[in-house]
C-alpha cells in the first residue's frame, strides 16, 4: 500500500471512524473539514513517527507538511531523501 493510502486509512479509521475512502479526498484540508484538532495532530505525528520511522521536528509541524493526505505523503517522501 502506498504511503498516501496508509495515511488516508489511518485518518479515516481514527477521525471519521470508517473505512470508506470516498469520505476523504487526498487533497482535502483537515483544517477546513474541522477533522483534526490540536491533540489529534499529536496523534497523527505519533502515527507517522511509528509507522514510517521518521522524526517530525517542531518546526516541521506546519500545514504545508501536514494538512492533507497528499501533503503528508509528499512530506514523507521528502523526509526519505
Amino acid at each position: 500500500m502506498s504511503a498516501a493510502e496508509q495515511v488516508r486509512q489511518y485518518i479515516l479509521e481514527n477521525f471519521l471512524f470508517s473505512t470508506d475512502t470516498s469520505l476523504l479526498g487526498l487533497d482535502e484540508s483537515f483544517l477546513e473539514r474541522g477533522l483534526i484538532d490540536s491533540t489529534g495532530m499529536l496523534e497523527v505525528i505519533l502515527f507517522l513517527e511509528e509507522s514510517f520511522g521518521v522524526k517530525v521536528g517542531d518546526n516541521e509541524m506546519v500545514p504545508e507538511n501536514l494538512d492533507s493526505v497528499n501533503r503528508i505523503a509528499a512530506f514523507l517522501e521528502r523526509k526519505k531523501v
Partner: protein
Amino acid sequence: MAAGPASLVDLLRESARRFPERPAILQRGAAVSYGELWRGVCRAANALRVGGLAPGERVALLIENSPGYVMAYYAVLQAGGVAVGLNTAMRGAELARNVAHCAANALIAMPGHPELPALMAARGTLRQIVTTPATAVSTAAAGRAVPAGAIAWHDWLAAVDESDVSAAVDSCAPASIIYTSGTTGDPRGVTLTHRNLVANTQSILAYLGLRETDRIVNVLPFYYSYGNSVLHTHLAAGASLLLENSLTYPHLVVQSMANERATGFSGVPATFALLLQRVPLADHDLSSLRYLTQAGGAMAPALTRRLRAALPAARLFVMYGQTEATARISYLPPERLDDKLGTVGIGIPGVAIEVQDAQGRRVAAGVEGEVCVRGDNVMLGYWENPAATAKVLRDGWLRTGDLGRLDEEGFLTLVGRSSDMIKTGAHRVSPLEIEEIVLELAGVAECAAVGVADPILGEVVRVCVVAAEGAGLEPRTVQAHCRNRLAVYKVPKEVVFVATLPKTASGKVRRFMLKEAG
C-alpha cells in the same frame, strides 16, 4: 461621561473616539482599525433594524473568530438585539436546536460553514440570513458562494449608512445568550445582561491593567465566555487582538507571538500544556509578553511552575470563572502566586465569594462546601428554563456547582465539582447529551458517559456501553454515530463495553466507578 457605560457598545464607541487609527483586530496580515470597526458596527446595526429586528430579538452568529464576528456581535447590541454566539464546532442538529430554542430572528454566518445549509433548511423563526465577507473570515470560507436564501454582507449594508443610532439601553435587559452544555430537554442558554457584560469587563480591566498599547494573540473562541471576555476587555482598553483560530499547529501561534511582539496571551490549561510540550519556547523571542492569563479549569501547580519557568518575565494571572458569572469570578494576583499556588485567588472587584453548605449557610474558613457568587456578573438566568435557573440562582447567590474552601484571607481553593460535567480542553460537555445520542444506536441497551484523565486535555470522553445480546457493536460504530451527530470534541475517545453499569440502590449510575474502569 456623565453616567457610566450602559452597554459594551458605549465602551467600544469610546475606544473608537480615542484611538480611531489604532488596529483593533488583526488577522492574516490584515488589520481593522477602531474607526473602521465602529463604522462597520453602526452600519450593520442599521441594516439589522431596517431588516425588521425589534429590541430584544435574538440574532444567532455562526462565525469563527474574525473581524466579521466582532462587527456582527456589537451591531446586534447596538441595534438592541440579543447576540447568540453559536459554537462553530457543532453539527447541524445541535445548532438548529439552539437557534430554535432562543427563537432567533436573524442569523449572521460565515458562508463556508459546512453546517450552514442544514441550519438554513431548519429555518424556523429566522427572517434575515446574512453571510459575512468570505475574505475576512477563514480559509475555509474563502471563495465560497453565498447560499440561496441568504444575503451577502456588502449587499446587506449597501442600503444603509453609518449613522450612530443608539437604542436606549436598559442595562438590565438581555444582551447575549451563551449556550453551555445542555441536552434537548434541558437547554442551558446563559442569559447575560448589558450590565453583566459591562461590570465583568470593567472588573477584569481593573486588575489586568490593560492599555491601548497591548496586543494579545488570541486563540480562544469568542462564542465561549472566556474568549468573549478577552474580546470585550481588550476592545474597551483600545488594545489590539491578533486572531489565531487554531492550535493544531502550536508552533505557528508562538511564532506569531514573537513576530508581532505580543504583550499578552490567554489560555486554558490544555493550551499551556500543549505549548510547553510541543514548542521550544526558549527558541523564540517572547520578551514582549507582559501578561498571561489562565482560566477554564484548575491548572496543576506543576504545570503553572513550568509555565513560569519558561516565561519568567510575564505576569501570570491564574483565574477562575463560569459562564453563569459572565466569565470571571476570581483571580490570583501574580505577586501572590508563589505563596498561594494551588488557589484560584480572591474575588474580582465587585464580586463576593462565599462557600456554603447544602442549606445555603455560609461555612467557616477552611471548611469545604459549594462555591457561591454574588455580584453584577451573575446571569439573569437560563433562557426559557426556569427550573434550571431556580436550581442555581438562590437567595441572590449563584451556586456554581464547584466545591471549594476559602482560607482566612479569602483565597479560594477548588476541590472538585458537584456536577458530572466533563471538562475537556476548553469545552464543557454534559454526559447526558452524549448518552442521548449513543442510545439512538440500535443494539445499545444502556450507556453512561464520563470524563477520564488526559495529560493534555484534562479529561476526555469515555462512554461505557451495555450492548444488547447479539448486537455486534464495535467501538468504531459508536464513535462514527457520534461523529455524525455531535461536535468533534464530544465524540468519545474511548468506548468500553461493559456487562452492566454500576448503580446505587435508587438506580442512579455511579459514574465515578466508570472513571476507573478500563
